[in-house]
């Protein structure tokens, strides 16, 4: 048991932060939703919402 823990720890030591990011699907999910929400959706909605309404 103790040995097994040790190898696991050693495995983790080698992992770079970059690799940790790639290995975390939930972090990736956050990025993948936040990016388009901010740059495409929110920015776009703000522009359309700020258009003046045409007079009848």
């Amino acid at each position: 048991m103790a040995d097994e823990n040790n190898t696991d720890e050693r495995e983790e030591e080698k992992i770079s932060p970059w690799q940790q990011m790639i290995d975390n699907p939930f972090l990736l999910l956050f990025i993948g939703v936040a990016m388009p929400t901010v740059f495409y959706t929110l920015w776009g909605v703000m522009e359309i919402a700020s258009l003046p309404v045409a007079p009848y």
Partner: protein
Amino acid sequence: MAQFRQCPDTGLFFHKEAENLMKANAVAGVVCLLIAGILALLVVLTRWPAVHLLPADTFYMVLTAHGVCALIFWVIFFEIAILYFAGSTLLRSRLATPRWAWAGFVLMIVGAVMTMAAIFAGKSSVMMTSYVPMRAEPHFYLGLVIFAVGALIGCFVYLGTLVVAKNEKTYEGSVPLVTFGATVACIIAIFTIASGAEILIPTYLWSIGYISHIDPAMYRLIWWALGHSSQQINVSAHVAVWYLIAGVIFGARPMSEKVSRAAYLLYIFFLQLASAHHLLTDPGLSVEWKLFNTSYAMYLAVLASMIHGLTVPGAIEVAQRKKGLTNGAFEWLRKAPWDNPVFSSMFISLVGFGFLGGISGVVMGTEQISIIIHNTIYVPGHFHATVVIGTTMAWMGLTYLLIPVLFRRKMIMPQAAKLQPYVFALGMSLVAIFHMAAGTLGVARRHWDMGFAGNPLGFEYPATAYLLMGIAGVGGVIAVVGGAMFIVIAVGSLVFGEKLQKEAGLLQSFGFPLADSAYTDEKPARLPMAPSEAVEAHHDESSFEAPGTFILAMVLLVSFVIYYFINWKYLSEVWGLS
């Protein structure tokens, strides 16, 4: 206790519950493809000017049904099957919460039936995009929402499976590249579905009179976050399928795991922003918004696709060269198994996606050029290259691969299967190329009568445009024949194919569990870390490992530059200043 069986031919492990779900989803997808294909024939025969088959109302109804059934239902059912395969089989893990997965499947079926019923009732011919203020019947939107909820459940079951696999330590190191690609597809799917809910739920409420007004510009903005992103699910997933098939057929290892994963990462960051290319001609949105989202962001996403387009054939080339096929630049490709439909479908998917779909997509995603082809039949020409030659053919290749492995049946009619990818690709390429050509002459998409007979505001297209649409019509018929061959072979194999395992009965082909005797309670051995990569292992060699692929990439680049130039030339002629 999770039960597994191991495929004796490929060594892949199948979790009992997961494999039934894969089968059910894949079969549901193929049924949708069948319906979509029949509808495609009606559509294409109407757009073939000399045939002009359907009356106007029916044409728009059938076109709506074709778009929805093909692009939404066929593709997404199959994608869910791929997610379960990538999460469970490739990671040697049990699937998380199979009951939820079945609930999602049932919702998807209910939603799909509801929407199709609304369309065929005739009062929801609003096209796949369902732009307001056109109003469909409420259950058209409701069905789509229910379908999306089902698919969302599938995505979360997939994410849950990743967690289970990690906790139960079913694999060493990081997940395999194919699973990583599926994860990217799943992430994009979640954004897609959220955007769909954002727009379709209000539209549903509007259709029942609860909300009085939906702004058309706002609708288009949010709808395309769904419409474009959903295509990027397809791209991520079919690229993963390319890697998978290259691995299975050639034992090819990615040239560089790092580079491939980084390319997928670019997808996560940038691919969905390119949704803006659908709105390049929309008023109301600023140039800054358009340029940020389509230039900077889109080019980075395109870069990622080009990396995949380079590393997949590159990996195949490296694997083939190791086997001694080293003569000249292309022996590895000439001696590839061209009569194996798994490979030919996959390779045509790759080349067609890059050359026809990719080049036209980047060109039309340029703000200035977009205006000369917007809403012309050029657009369907482009996306039949991407979603049909690209995605659909990748799915077909995977189906051929899975018939023996997952369904445990021998494929019937092997001779026809050898031909099928070529027939389908020939027809579809004609459709894509000649629709694009006709679009360049201004022929409108979603248009019943290009002759404008009896219309006071008619327009006369040059005779060439009629010829081009006629050729596209012939191509469409050939493609439908190719599609029908696929359905006959795939479904026929599930029903009549020789059983490779005594338990694989008729119902088992459609998602019923195999008898217990097929499984063991033994947990699969832990998936070992992938062996070192093809290229990274010996970096010291100065020349590029895959010269043939390099030449192919250069050909793509030159084609792109020429085609880009041609389109700027067209654009310059619009105003006739010089």
